[in-house]
């Protein structure tokens, strides 16, 4: 996506790496926005750190969504955007999950607002969020077949 900047290190990235360099697989900046990529199983730990660390304090989860990179593997990226009301900084957290039986740990316990966002991603992409209290469809009817925002789902729908 973008080259990793060698000379200048984003303060949020620096703080995360100082905390646990092993939890972060990659950081990159594009158009002034920091993207932190973490392994799937690290999501709850990193999320809790981002939320509670006094220097970061990302208390406001803007949204949570996914992108489908079909047919490459790992297929889905789950993307979290958050900001800190006190420190006025932002970050994007990203994690990858496979196309077969995709799932990511839920962050509902860290940010309650993730509830509906995760249900929407489940509904439209078919990614399960482990530990979510109510993993059901939210926009489409409960008996709908398929997940429309997947790239192998035709824009006109199945006829």
């Amino acid at each position, binding site marked *: 996506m973008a080259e990793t900047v060698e000379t200048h290190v984003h303060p949020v990235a620096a703080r995360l790496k100082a905390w646990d360099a092993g939890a972060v697989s990659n950081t990159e900046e594009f158009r002034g*926005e920091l993207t932190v990529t973490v392994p799937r199983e690290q999501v709850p730990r990193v999320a809790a750190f981002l939320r509670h660390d006094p220097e970061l304090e990302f208390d406001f989860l*803007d*949204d949570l969504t996914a992108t489908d990179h079909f047919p490459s593997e790992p297929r889905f990226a789950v993307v979290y955007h958050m900001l800190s009301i006190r420190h006025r900084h932002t970050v994007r957290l990203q994690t990858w999950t496979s196309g077969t039986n995709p799932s990511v740990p839920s962050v509902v316990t860290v940010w309650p607002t993730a*509830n509906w966002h995760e249900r929407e991603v489940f509904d439209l992409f078919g990614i399960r969020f482990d530990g979510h209290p109510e993993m059901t469809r939210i*926009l489409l009817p409960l008996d709908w077949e398929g997940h429309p925002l997947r790239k192998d789902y035709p824009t006109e729908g199945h006829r």
Partner: protein
Amino acid sequence: MSTTVDTAAGAAEAMVLNMGPQHPSTHGVLRVALEMDGETLISAKPDIGYLHTGIEKSCEAKTYSQAITLTDRMDYLSPLSNNLCYCLAVEKLLGLEVPKRAQYVRVLLTELTRIASHLVWLGTHAIDLGAMSVFLYCFREREEILKIFEMVAGQRMMTSYFRIGGLSLEPPAGWLDRVENFVEAFPGHLAEYEDLLTENRIWRIRTVGVGVISPEDAIAWGVSGPVLRAAGVPFDVRKYFPYSSYEEFQFEVPTRKESDCFARYLVRLEEMRQSLSIVKQAMAKVPAEGPIRTDAPGIVPPPREKMKTEMEALIYHFKIFTEGFSPAPGHVYQRIESPRGELSCYLASDGSPKPFRVKFRAPSFVNLQALPLLCTGRLMADAVACIGTLDIVLGEIDR
């Protein structure tokens, strides 16, 4: 969604009442499953999706420029805010700089949009709570704003006026006079609404102390916009992460501490005053002449004159409207302050002329999620006031 109720052994049976999807005070097609003990709400569960039209999926099948028309149709009460959010996201992805003149016109029109949207909110919310006449006054003033939009964009509602790199058309001669007329008259109208409502006993009984949410809860649930500011958190994207030259404008971010429906009413009224002040400043700032689009060959359509005289301009025009343009792979996130709260656009490109992924963070979607916190334990009629002051637009929630 299940509508069966589990009641503890020995407890009186609760009743489930479906409010909506065809209920006037749900402002669209929203169903709320209310679980009630007599008149008291035990729980309220919003059920959404009735208006899902797959806008995000449709965007992936259009070029970057074509997708603008779809954004109008999400939050249909503030189409220009949606246009702005999407255009800023594409411009960020491309690294485009928009001329100052276009930026000021954008600010001016989005602030008018905020006033128009708050007017619809005030009118319909007053109707929900039984005050009919306010609605008629609000729509009278909103009509003036829509006439300005029609004058500028050719459309009252689905404007699509902001384009990637600037504006679609040169604003017509005399449009600022029309804005001036509105700006002159509006403070008097605002005073009228306040006369009708602020000290009105029924209005106060229905709103004071109703639908309280703590600032901590509001942040944890991602609530933004006037609802969050009525809880005392001064979060406004225009101040936090200024865009489109908002840092050059002087305005206050009104907040209240009470966090009830009445506080949200006061915050929105004050926001209209602040928007009016921004409109005045923008009127003074907009240069009478100057480019309305940035000069970016291959991305922004060339002026008509150039197309008739320059071969290259004609080729660019043809290419933009047949295949579009291809931004470099990458992803960006653009936040703006819409009338309803933080509206954001996540845009990912894979290097093709069509967006790889477009995701809108709809403020109504997130705010509605907090509805159970507002009205649980209160009377059923309070649910109407709570839904009203959240100011939701279902087109944006379901997308």
